[in-house]
């Protein structure tokens, strides 16, 4: 069971980063919205993962993407911020003691919980990405607009992917 979770996550990591780097890197909507769907990997890591390991994985994922995007540090910081929001949200909303769901997927947790979870994490990630990338406050409103539209684009794709691979747990 345990090794199966690890294998699935490794496969997911490669698949999502491949899609991000080969396909979505060239995609943008009127130079305003660019999707970063690879964060779905960090969203779907199992509940029981230790905090330190989660941060290390987030750091490594961000660094890998930075190497391919030539934006050293931007996605690294953003993924770490996402990890923090993820931990905070899960601590507040989920009681870990009497709980046996392995992963926070749409099928396991229901649409309402998952959508709030995805919205918070995506916005945290995108805010850091766009403001660190621009790195100046003179373009504040325009950067915020790009951030907002990109987050909506990313969320749309994430929820679409989750519905495609939707499998409701038999209760």
């Amino acid at each position, binding site marked *: 069971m345990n090794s199966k979770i690890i294998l699935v996550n490794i496969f997911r990591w490669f698949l999502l980063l491949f899609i991000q780097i080969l396909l979505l890197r060239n995609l943008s909507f009127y130079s305003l919205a660019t999707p970063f769907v690879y964060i779905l990997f960090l969203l779907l890591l199992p509940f029981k993962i230790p905090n*330190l390991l989660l941060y290390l994985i987030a750091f490594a994922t961000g660094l890998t993407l930075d190497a391919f995007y*030539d934006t050293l*540090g931007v996605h690294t910081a953003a993924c770490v911020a996402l990890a923090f929001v993820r931990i905070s949200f899960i601590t507040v909303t989920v009681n870990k003691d009497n709980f046996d769901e392995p992963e926070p997927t749409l099928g396991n947790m229901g649409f309402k919980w998952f959508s709030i979870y995805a919205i918070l994490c995506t916005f945290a990630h995108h805010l850091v990405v766009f403001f660190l990338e621009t790195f100046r406050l003179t373009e504040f409103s325009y950067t915020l607009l790009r951030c907002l539209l990109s987050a909506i684009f990313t969320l749309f794709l994430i929820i679409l992917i989750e519905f495609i691979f939707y499998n409701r747990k038999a209760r």
Partner: protein
Amino acid sequence: MRNLWIFINRYNAFFFFIIFFTIGIYLTVSNNSYQRSVTVNSTNEVVGTAYKNLNVLKKYLNLGDVNDSLAAENAKLKTELLALSSIDSSKNVVVKDTLNKTQYTYLSARVIKNSITLRNNIITINRGTADGIASGMAVISAGKGVVGYIRDVSDHLATIESLLHKDTKVSVTLKKNNALGTLVWGTKNFDYRKAYIKDVPNHFKIALKDTVVTSGFSRFPPGILVGRVSNTGISTGDNFMTIEIDLFNDFSTLQYVYVIKDKLAEEQKALESKLPNEQ
């Protein structure tokens, strides 16, 4: 001491966040500065090879366009050659200006990675220090237009700070009235076909459709085509105006570029460093 440990352990998520986030910010800042020590980018062996292999497949898709642009450039060069050879050299005094003629040498390179969707776009090419490329050299495209400056170089790869980058500035001039300005990208929108000329004095009358060329004051040779004026009425409220231009260069289909080696660059730098420091 034990209480402190318990406290840290209880809020470990927050402390880990502080540590890792600081590292991330540090990497970003160090990457923005001119002296970069860490090279986790596409001049890296692994990333570069991945993009190279990908590009082998991709370059076949644009073969037609590349052929057309090369043929057009050939025709243009042939016309220039014809104009030169029609000068009756027997009547003219021969002036051997070998220094100026060979000030710039061109080296062709293939684009293996490009992006146009970000705020700061970086292009990777398949030439490196082995071909004599150094950081700071100017790059133009095979058709027409400026591309950017060389940023990081490894043995066989180099990254270009594209014109579509917040730090790239090129000194340009307008053909009709020789007004000087600074070419930048992304102040108003992030359309890869548009750029802006800043710091043009207000008293110039700017004509629509006027051609913009490089002035030769930055690292580009003078007279390289950049674009065409498309909007003149952007006022900034002070003594300078901003002009919107359409770029000749299509960054989305960039395939081959020329890296320009300036033989006098070192000499000029050494000379200008003797001036009292202005920055």
